[in-house]
């Protein structure tokens, strides 16, 4: 009886998560195999959307790696988190708060020597690069 209980528990343990994970695991296996060897930019376009991925590429090409910029969030969601990672090691400036809206940008004093402003516009939208002098 006790041995049966043990075998039952062992089986339960193995199967406890299987119905939830097996379909996803197999799907990832097939999807991963399908996209293996894909160039990074193509993968980024597929996952993040072409507008966002190409927008990031344009900003990367325009700003040197040690450039400083002010990061503004124009969407309701914090898409600037995505943008700061994709633009790193370019350096976003911190001016009081991380979630800097366009309205707030007009209120705060700009950091000295600020040349660039990057506007995050949502998860799949192209971020925009602006010259600080042109933004009022």
């Amino acid at each position, binding site marked *: 009886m006790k041995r049966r209980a043990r075998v039952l528990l062992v089986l339960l*343990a193995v199967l*406890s*998560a299987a119905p939830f994970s097996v379909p996803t*695991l197999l799907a990832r*296996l097939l*999807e991963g195999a399908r996209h293996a060897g894909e160039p*990074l930019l193509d*993968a980024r376009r597929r996952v*993040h959307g072409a507008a966002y991925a190409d927008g990031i590429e344009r900003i990367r090409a325009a700003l040197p790696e040690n450039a400083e910029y002010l990061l503004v969030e124009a969407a309701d969601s914090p898409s600037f988190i995505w943008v700061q990672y994709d633009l790193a090691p370019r350096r976003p*400036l911190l001016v009081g708060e991380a979630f800097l809206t366009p309205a707030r940008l007009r209120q705060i004093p700009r950091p000295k020597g600020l040349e660039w402003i990057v506007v995050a516009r949502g998860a799949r939208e192209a971020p925009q690069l602006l010259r600080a002098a042109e933004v009022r």
Partner: protein
Amino acid sequence: MSVPTAAAALLLFLAPGFALTGLLPDVRGRALPVRLALGWLLGLAWVAGMLYALSHLLQVALSGTAIGILAALPVVAWLATRPSRRTVRRRRFRPLVLVPLAIGGIASAALFLDAAANPVTDWDGRMTWGAHARHIRAARSVDADTLRNGRYLVFHPRYPALLPVAQAAALEVTGSEDERLTRLLYAAFLPCFLTLVFAFSAPRGGLLVACALTSAAALLPQLTYDSWGAAGLESDLPLGCFLGASFLLLVQRRGVSTPAFLLAAAVLTKSEGLPLAIAALAVCLLPARNRRRLLAPALAIVLAAFFLWTWRAGITDRMTDAYAAPSLAALGRAAGALRPSLAAFLDTQRWGLFWPVAALILLMGRRGLSRPLLLFVALALVFYAGAWALHTTAIEKIVERTLSRFLLQLALPALALLSDALRTVDGTPRPAGGAGGGLGAPRNTI
């Protein structure tokens, strides 16, 4: 990303780690899969840990040359000394092992293919761990001005940087900018973890139990494809591996050099690493006979903590978690964690029905549970509850965001407890050496 690039990134840590398993006396004679799993942990601890220390203390640049020399040192030492080969006792092949091997193999293959195909998409990986790695790599220093200077928007700049340093090293050595390479490093913790589950469960619960628990673990969504597990750039699974392996090795009384390495790595992996490493050591120190033996792991924790403190001292803290001062009200807050905790345990999207089944197993096999393991898990839970109580975020939210990750940090000792319980369900006596009370477990088992 080409296959040779991916292989080079993984071998950067695996090769020196494997060499270390040939040099360290407490792991030298173990079976090949266990040496590979521990080798992955030791290699990462050695290469990234030394780079972290040399960069901060001696301003050594994180260049390809420095990384290459560090990775080559253990390999050269191992090849030069080739300590007398201890014969590994060949065991009869048991077909049952094919079950966890197949399930774990499929789960690992799915994860590696996913990591090789898709860029980083997890929130914390992009916000914190991956961004830190890019700033460190660009500065070729763990003291990157972007991290230290409060002028820049960086999230959690004081988080321990062992894993970001490992990411930076892998990218630097391969000359790659491909973020998918960094995902592979985290994916490698899955087969490492599964191997350790098997290795620690087999001597405690027997072959059937080890096969069952390894298979069960390989099918946990949280572990295998959730971004909080091995699929993202989160440091919880690496911490769980460093911490769990060192604690269980200490409990088994199989030497102290490997646990010392791994405990230091745990401290440098995540902020929770230090209190949890202290808890692990404290539990092992309880029997008076262990005290002198544990000097090396204790020293490793102290040195890693001191190093972390000096590194953090130069960083302007910003954009990070806020904690309130301890108070009586905090106790009430901690009590409020019960309901969201229950919800996290029952979250089928992350865990399936694993925890209800685990609770049943623990209940039925409660007589066989190891007291040191129980004590460690209890201490860790008290620590987590304390952190939640003092955190300024609403208790439901902070529990929901962290508990599933904390469970990964405790996964190895938790699964070892399940092995004990399953062993005793049918009345099989506890392992010799008193897994229930002492710190012993059968020797020469993994």
